[in-house]
C-alpha cells in the first residue's frame, strides 16, 4: 500500500513506543484488536490529577495501525480524561490521510484510548481520582 507522508513519518519515527508498569496506580492500559485480525494495539496512559501526563503504545499491525496509535499517544497528552474520550477516529483518518480500507486502524486507535481510560477508571472504582 502506498501511504501518505504522515503515515510514513509515524511508521519510521514512531512517538512514544514503550510500556508503563500496567499495575501502577496512575496507569490505564487498553489492549484492543486480535492477532487473528492482524492488528493488536496496546495503549497506556499515565494520569495525574485527571490529566494525561504521558502515553505509550505498542502495536502489532500494518503501517497505518502503527501510525494511528503513535498519533493517538501524541494527541492524548495534556488532555483531561473527558477531553481524551472525545477524540474521534475520523480526526485520525484526516490527519494521516488514511485510505478507506485502513479506516479500521483509526477505529482501533480510538477504541484503545477509550479502553485505557476505562481501565483506569475501573481500577479507581469509577472515581476520577488520583
Amino acid at each position, binding site marked *: *500500500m502506498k*501511504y501518505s507522508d504522515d503515515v*510514513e513519518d509515524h*511508521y519510521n519515527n*514512531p512517538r512514544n*513506543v514503550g*510500556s508503563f508498569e500496567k499495575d501502577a496506580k496512575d496507569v490505564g492500559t487498553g*489492549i*484492543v*484488536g*486480535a*492477532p*487473528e*485480525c*492482524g*492488528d*493488536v*494495539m*496496546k495503549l497506556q496512559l499515565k494520569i495525574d490529577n485527571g490529566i494525561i501526563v504521558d502515553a505509550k503504545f*505498542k*502495536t*502489532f*499491525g*500494518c*503501517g497505518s*495501525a*502503527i501510525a494511528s496509535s503513535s498519533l493517538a499517544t501524541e494527541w492524548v497528552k495534556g488532555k483531561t480524561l473527558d477531553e481524551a474520550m472525545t477524540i474521534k477516529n475520523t480526526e485520525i483518518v484526516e490527519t494521516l490521510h488514511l485510505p478507506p*480500507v485502513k479506516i*479500521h486502524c483509526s*477505529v*482501533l486507535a480510538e*477504541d484503545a484510548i477509550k479502553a485505557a481510560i476505562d481501565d483506569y477508571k475501573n481500577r479507581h472504582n469509577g472515581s476520577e481520582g488520583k
Partner: protein
Amino acid sequence: MNLPIYMDNHSTTQVDPRVVEEMLPYFTAHFGNAASRNHSFGWDADKAVEVGRERLAKIIHADPKEIIFTSGATESNNLALKGVAEMYAEKGDHIITQVTEHRSVLDTAKRLEKSGIRVTYLPVDQEGLVDPEEVRKAITDRTILISIMLVNNEIGVIQPVEEIGKIAKERGILFHCDATQGVGKVKVDVHAMGIDLLSFTAHKLYGPKGVGALYVRRKNPRVRLAPMMDGGGHERGMRSGTLNVPGIVGFGKACEIAMEVMDEEAARLLRLRERLSSGITGALEEVYLNGHPVKRMPGNLNLSFAYVEGESMLMGLKEVALSSGSACTSATLEPSYVLQALGIGIELAHSSIRFGLGRFNTEEEVDYVIGRVIATVNRLREMSPLYEMVKEGVNLKEVKWGKH
C-alpha cells in the same frame, strides 16, 4: 548493487535482454499478421510464430501442434476448465481440484458450480501437498477433469503431479495442470506426468507479459475444448484472435534460454535460498517456514515472523520488492488462503513474507536482504505488544481478545 532490489519473481520476472532483442524486429520490420496467407509480411510472422511454438513444445516435451497461444495463464486456466466442462458435458459434470490452486482456477471452478458443475476441493497437508490417494478417492463416474497445479505461487511447493497423472490415466479422466510457476524452473514432461492440458505463461520465465499458452493433448486421448473466444478460428479453433507475434517470439526465446540454463540456474538459486534462509533463521527466533522444506521450487522461500505483521515488515523493507500473505496486502482484506489451508494459524499468515529469487538476483543482494530483514523484524518486535506479552510468559492462545 543497485536499489531497490527485486525479489518478487513469483509475481513476475524481468524480461531477459536476449528475449527483448529477439522480439524487437517483430514490432517493426516483421509486423505482419501471422494469419495473412498471401504476402511475405504474413509469412514472416507465421514462421516466427511456428519457431516460438516449437520452442514452447520442447520445454514441456510436447508436439508443437499441441500448443495453443493465449493472453496468459489466467486465460489458459479458464479455457481448460470451461472448455472441458462444456465439451464433455454429456460425459459428466464433476471436477476435482484443490484448495491452494491459483485464483484463476478456483474462481473459474466457482463459476462453473453456478452452472451446475460439481467441484471437489481437496485439502492439502500442513506442508501444502495434495495426497494423490485423496484424488483417487474423490473420483466418481461423473468426473471429467482433475486440475492440480505443479508449483504453488505462494509457498513454491511441488505437487505430486506424476502420481496424480497416473491415477487420471487409469481412470480415463482428463488431467489439467497449471504449471505457470513451474515451467522453466523445474522439469516438465507432459507424457511422463500424464498431463492432458497444461497452462503456462511467458512473464514468469523472463519473457514478456500478455502471452501465455495452453498445451492441449492431441493423442491418447485427443482432447477437445469448447472455445471461449469466437472469431477467426485461430489456434485450431480453440482460441480465436490475432496472434501476439512479438510476444510469442519472446515467449519462445525465453523457453529456449530456460531449457539451456535450467539445471545450473536451479542449483544457483537453491544456494541463494539456503543462504537467505539460514542467514535469517540463524539470527531471529520464531521464524517458521511455510510449505514443504524440500519439495519446493528452488527460488521460493516463504517465512512467517511471529509477532510481526507482514505489511509493516514490507514497509520497513521498502528498498526490497517482496510480497506478504498478510490481509493488509491483499485485495480481499483476508490473509492468504494458501497459508490458511496449511492450518498454520491465521496470525502466522498475517506475518508471512514471500521471497522470490530469480535469475538476476545476486549473493550480494541476498546478504543485504538478510541484514534488512533482521533489523526490521527486531525493530517491529520491540514495538509489538504480542512479543512483549510472550516475553512476559503470557500464552497468547489463552488471552481473551476483543473483536473488531
